[in-house]
């Protein structure tokens, strides 16, 4: 049981390595990251009705091995760097006109160059898996030691190092309230949310630094400012892509960052869409949506157990459990597809939000919900 509980969270590390291998192999294998994303969407949909509780031994202790899980999360930093390096090499080959020849290395066939179509596949694959890798940036943001720094570096690979501070100091504090840019109010679609949430969290992170440094009598425009430092951590990625592909490299990096940040904000969008909390009241299980079918739980290292996570923010992911939070009833992959079609998503959540208003919300929260309804926003 102990081995199984720990090994089941290796889907993303394994898939990320397969994606990198595919990009290095080239040809149609450049698309393998996209294909895996599609396969996992199917598996997630098929397994939507299988839900498990957190397993514990007879003494009530989790089977999770902290040292193992942390080593895996730390190793994901060089893995995601390697993912970007793989794409950069392909960009260099494309822009320098490398010939498309099939070569053999250690008995494995690979293509010496890359076509434009397959370069698009490699870019999409990189963006998707860099985005899915953000789950480690999130988990480590709650570790207050070296993990916090690793979280900043992982997020910086997607140009989003501000997330680490904004997530802990803003999202966890202001969840479900208009002061939290990561909480999507009713009526907003995922496309608008991704921009507003990203910009709002970055602004929060800047203001956080500004207030702290002002209180300490230090200059905001200095290397004491973690917001500035965070963006500087992204410079190696920018240099790598411009060096390898020039203008096309910059376009590819913007593509990768757009996809990865869109996935991050889609997770924020799904996690709390339309839920309401009166400012100053404690965060409860009802202020998050759970997505905890078996595949989503294992793939996303239990990030879908948002209800428990937001009440016990210091708890390791393998200890999170079903706490009776409102539940979408489907996994993240399936729900993500619905969010891409805003009308379909709002139709899906309409009954869920009505149930929330009736069975979870306090009087104060219903009052806010009624204001949305008065504006004609039902979901």
């Amino acid at each position, binding site marked *: 049981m102990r081995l199984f509980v720990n090994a089941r969270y290796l889907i993303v590390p394994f898939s990320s390595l397969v994606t990198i291998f595919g990009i290095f192999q080239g040809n149609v294998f450049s698309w393998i990251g996209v294909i895996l994303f599609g396969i996992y969407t199917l598996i997630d949909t098929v397994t939507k009705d299988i839900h498990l509780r957190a397993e514990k031994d007879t003494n009530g202790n989790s089977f999770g091995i902290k040292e193992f899980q942390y080593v895996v999360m730390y190793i994901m930093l060089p893995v995601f760097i390697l993912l970007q390096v793989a794409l950069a090499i392909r960009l260099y080959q494309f822009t320098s006109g490398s010939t498309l020849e099939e070569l053999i290395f250690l008995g494995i066939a690979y293509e010496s160059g890359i076509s434009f179509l397959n370069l698009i596949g490699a870019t999409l694959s990189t963006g998707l898996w860099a985005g899915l890798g953000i789950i480690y940036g999130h988990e480590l943001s*709650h570790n*207050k030691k070296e993990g916090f720094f690793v979280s900043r570096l992982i997020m910086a690979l997607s140009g989003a190092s501000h997330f680490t501070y904004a997530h*802990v100091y*803003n999202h*966890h*504090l202001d969840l479900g309230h208009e002061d939290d840019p990561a909480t999507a109010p009713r009526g907003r679609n995922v496309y608008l949310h991704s921009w507003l949430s990203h910009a709002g969290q970055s602004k929060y992170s800047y203001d956080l630094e500004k207030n702290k440094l002002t209180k*300490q009598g230090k200059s905001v425009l200095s290397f004491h400012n973690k917001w500035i430092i965070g963006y500087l951590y992204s410079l190696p990625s920018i240099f790598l892509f411009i060096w390898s592909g020039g203008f096309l490299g910059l376009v590819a990096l913007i593509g990768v960052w757009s996809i990865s940040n869109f996935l991050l904000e889609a997770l924020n969008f799904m996690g709390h869409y339309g839920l309401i909390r009166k400012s100053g009241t404690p965060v409860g299980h009802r202020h998050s949506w759970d997505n905890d079918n078996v595949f989503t739980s294992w793939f996303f290292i239990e990030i879908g157990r948002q209800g428990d996570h937001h009440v016990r*923010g210091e708890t390791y992911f393998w200890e999170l459990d079903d706490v009776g939070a409102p539940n979408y009833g489907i996994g993240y992959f399936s729900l993500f597809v619905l969010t891409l079609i805003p009308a379909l998503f709002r139709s899906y959540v309409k009954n869920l939000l009505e149930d929330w208003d009736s069975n979870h919300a306090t009087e104060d929260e219903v009052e806010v919900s009624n204001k949305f309804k008065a504006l004609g926003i039902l979901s």
Partner: protein
Amino acid sequence: MFNLFNKPKDRQALINPHSEHTTLIINKGNTLLNSALNAGIDWPYKCKVGSCGTCKCKVLSGGVKAQIDFGYVLSPDEINEGYVLACQSELKSDIEVEINLNK
């Protein structure tokens, strides 16, 4: 040198030494807040991730190891006066701490 091979000691926190005198044992790696909550003490808290400041308390003697920079939540004056966030504090030594448990 031989201290390197000794198992780190658990620490003690004497809570509100000038009034109710509750003594709390804090195991290595545990925070002051979690240890207090596990002992059934009604310590005020809200977020447990170091962002709200609800668990703020004043260390009168001894030292804590801050898991995060308190400067985002506490003012420089508060930090100089010994205020810490219990949810992000491990103990470096035995401490005496003051907290309003009737919030």
